Every structure is written in structure tokens, then in C-alpha cells.
């Protein structure tokens, strides 16, 4: 590929990334503004969890739409052409559903209200999401090849190290009296999910999978 074509490809990728980022931020702000009134948040951590959940749900939906409509998906997902989406349909479809369910899990958790009756319903819904995440992740795993497995291992290792650094560091500071506010259970769950999302992007970026093909 000559340098002019490479520059054009890089420019196109940057425009897409920028457009995606602007759309994502705008959608998150719009949703969180609406959700703030709808769910009557008492704690900024609830909004944080809702934001992380929304990120998972949006990513899953975008991949899911791409799998259902490969022609449309090939325009915004980083694939060579629509056939690649058709070839990877089983893996991507199951992963997309698992991703949406993780998002729904976090959104429900952020919106959970106190009270035994409400919590029982919420518990069942969350349990359904958790079972769904495990089932669809296992189904996607059957179609993984060695690169996907390697990415999974690297992302899992990064998630562990970042979590230890973040929450372990926070715990140490809290013990020493420097961080007086300790992370809430909701903040911990949402924090782990955010760290995992970041780790997946880092692992993919290191293998060049975020570069426009």
C-alpha cells in the first residue's frame, strides 16, 4: 500500500473513531440525563454504573446489528467485508448478546431500589442476566480460534492487574487514612466491568485489531 493510500485510510479511521466517540458521548449524556429523572439516582456511583452498563449495551447492540445486517455492519465494524461478518456470525452473535446482557445487568443494578419485594424481582432478573452471560459466552467460546483465546487471556490478565492496582491501592490508601471514602459494592462491580472493557480494548489494540483494515 502506498503512503497516500495509507494516509487516506488512517484519516478515514480517525474520522470514524471521532464520529463514534462523539455519538457515544452524546448518547450517554442524553440517556443519563433522562435516566437521572427516571430512576431518581441518590448516588453518583449509580450513574457511573449506569454509564458503564450503557457502554456495554451499546457495543453489544452495534455488533449485534452488524451481525444481523452484515452489509450495514461492514461499514462501521472493523472487518474486511460483509462476508467476514457472515463467517464469524456464530461467535460475534453470541458475544454481542452476552455484551448486551452485561450492560443490562449493570443498568438494572444501578436502578435497583431498596425493599424486599423489589429486590426479589431484581434478584431474579439479575440472575437471568448472569446465566445468560455465562451461556452466550460459552456458546461464543466454541467458535473462538487461537487469536481470540490469546486475546481473552491477555485481557483477563490485564483486568486482574488493573483491578489489583486500582482497588488494592484504594484499599491501602483507605487503611492509611488517605482515601476516606471506600468504594461501594455497586462501584466495585461497575469498576471491575469498566476495567475489563478497557483491558479488552488494550489487548485488541496491542494486536493491531483496532487499526482500520
Amino acid at each position: 500500500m502506498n503512503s497516500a493510500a495509507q494516509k487516506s485510510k488512517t484519516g478515514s479511521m480517525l474520522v470514524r473513531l471521532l464520529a463514534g466517540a462523539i455519538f457515544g458521548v452524546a448518547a450517554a449524556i442524553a440517556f443519563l440525563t433522562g435516566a437521572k429523572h427516571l430512576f431518581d439516582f441518590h448516588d453518583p456511583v449509580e450513574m457511573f454504573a449506569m454509564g458503564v452498563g450503557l457502554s456495554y449495551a451499546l457495543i453489544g447492540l452495534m455488533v449485534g446489528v452488524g451481525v444481523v445486517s452484515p452489509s450495514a455492519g461492514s461499514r462501521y465494524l472493523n472487518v474486511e467485508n460483509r462476508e467476514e461478518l457472515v463467517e464469524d456470525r456464530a461467535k460475534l452473535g453470541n458475544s454481542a448478546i452476552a455484551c448486551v446482557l452485561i450492560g443490562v445487568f449493570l443498568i438494572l443494578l444501578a436502578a435497583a431500589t431498596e425493599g424486599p419485594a423489589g429486590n426479589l424481582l431484581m434478584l431474579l432478573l439479575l440472575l437471568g442476566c448472569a446465566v445468560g452471560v455465562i451461556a452466550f459466552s460459552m456458546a461464543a467460546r466454541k467458535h473462538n480460534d487461537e487469536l481470540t483465546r490469546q486475546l481473552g487471556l491477555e485481557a483477563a490478565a490485564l483486568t486482574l492487574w488493573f483491578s489489583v492496582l486500582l482497588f488494592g491501592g484504594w484499599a491501602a490508601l483507605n487503611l492509611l487514612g488517605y482515601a476516606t471514602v471506600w468504594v461501594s459494592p455497586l462501584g466495585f462491580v461497575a469498576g471491575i466491568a469498566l476495567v475489563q472493557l478497557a483491558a479488552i480494548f488494550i489487548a485488541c489494540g496491542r494486536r493491531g485489531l483496532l487499526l482500520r483494515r
Partner: protein
Amino acid sequence: MENRVKHWREAQGWSQGELARRLGVSRQTINAVETDKYDPSLPLALRMAKLFAVPVDRLFIDHWDLESGK
């Protein structure tokens, strides 16, 4: 590690998708190998060599020097 997978694939007239299909991996894997972002496992490297009918060391070139150890 340097590799000549793209060279041998193109010599066969195959697309990345075609090679991926023959090896039972995803196109992303072939792309990552060709762009030196991922070193394949030994079984996959051996299958590639078998498919192209070339020795592995003509497909994957290691510049490690025995004398200097670098």
C-alpha cells in the same frame, strides 16, 4: 518475528479469507500474523508450512544470533 506468510499466500493466489478457511482460523488471525502483531502457535505454524509446502524456517524468520545470543 518476521514472517513471509503474505508472500506465500499471494503466491498461491489466495485471499486472507481463503487461507483462514483452509486453516480453520479467523481472517483476523491471518491479518494479525501477516502484520507481525501475532506469532501463531507451533501447530498453526506447522500447518501453514504444510499448506504452502515450504519449510517452517522459510515462512518464519528468526534473526536470533547464536554467537551473540541476541
